[in-house]
């Protein structure tokens, strides 16, 4: 067994360096917000499925999909889940997908990002 521990900190150091660029930081933070929303929806649906004691195969049957597509969805082994599929899964689990407005302060900051102040 090797006892040599490699320095694995380059990613953090590179990210910290790149975040000094305001445009990079804004792009990173926007991407992170989008990713978190998608991840949260999928994980909450899977948690709801588990709470209901429904197998992935049963869920697939209820929405006329094959079991492997549902399995791939919940394990991120296939990308870009489509909204109609998400809505169908939510419905089969007795739930629904909703869009919630952000808190006012958060909405204001989003608007400011979209509408830079006039020079």
């Amino acid at each position, binding site marked *: 067994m090797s006892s040599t521990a490699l320095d694995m900190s380059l990613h953090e150091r590179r990210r910290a360096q790149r975040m000094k660029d305001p445009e990079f930081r804004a792009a990173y933070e926007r991407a992170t917000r989008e990713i978190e929303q998608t991840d949260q929806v999928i994980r909450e649906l899977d948690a709801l499925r588990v709470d209901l004691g429904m197998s992935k195969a049963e869920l697939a049957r209820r929405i006329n999909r094959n079991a492997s597509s549902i399995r791939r969805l919940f394990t991120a082994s296939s990308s*870009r889940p489509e909204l109609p599929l998400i809505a169908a899964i939510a419905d089969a689990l007795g739930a629904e997908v909703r869009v919630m407005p952000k808190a006012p302060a958060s909405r204001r900051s989003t608007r400011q990002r979209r509408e830079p102040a006039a020079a």
Partner: protein
Amino acid sequence: MARRRSQNDKTDASRVPRVDRRQPWAIIYYETRDGSAPALEFLDECPGKIDAEFLSVLDAVAGAPPPQFSGGGKWEAMHGNMGGWHEIRLTGPSREQFRLFCVLENASDEELLRRGLTKPAIAVVTGMRKPWRTKFSENDYSRVRRLGDDHKANHPRRIAR
């Protein structure tokens, strides 16, 4: 005498690296024998927003690694000749396609330490880009696999620092 040896044993044991299984996983970058890091060179040449998005996806997946769903649908397990690989798929300006190719470093504690890793990791090997509605060739994928094979052949891993 016996007491001193006991203290030394304890000191030596504390020097042996331990594997940290807590999340997030580490994110490491493969380095070639000549010291270049293909994935870092690729990221440095990407538009800034694409670089930022790649890092965001990597951080999301490192924070909730497979088999959990993470990466916002942009992290995908590959199949066929690329089985065992994962890619991040992004679309840039003019619908240009950007791909980052990764392998997971997750094994027993003993094996991870043999690789020089003190925690499971996402190893970022290389990246490629292509115009919208074109395909990478089998040669392109072969080159990716060769880099991955070289990465996996090294104990400890050769990574950019």
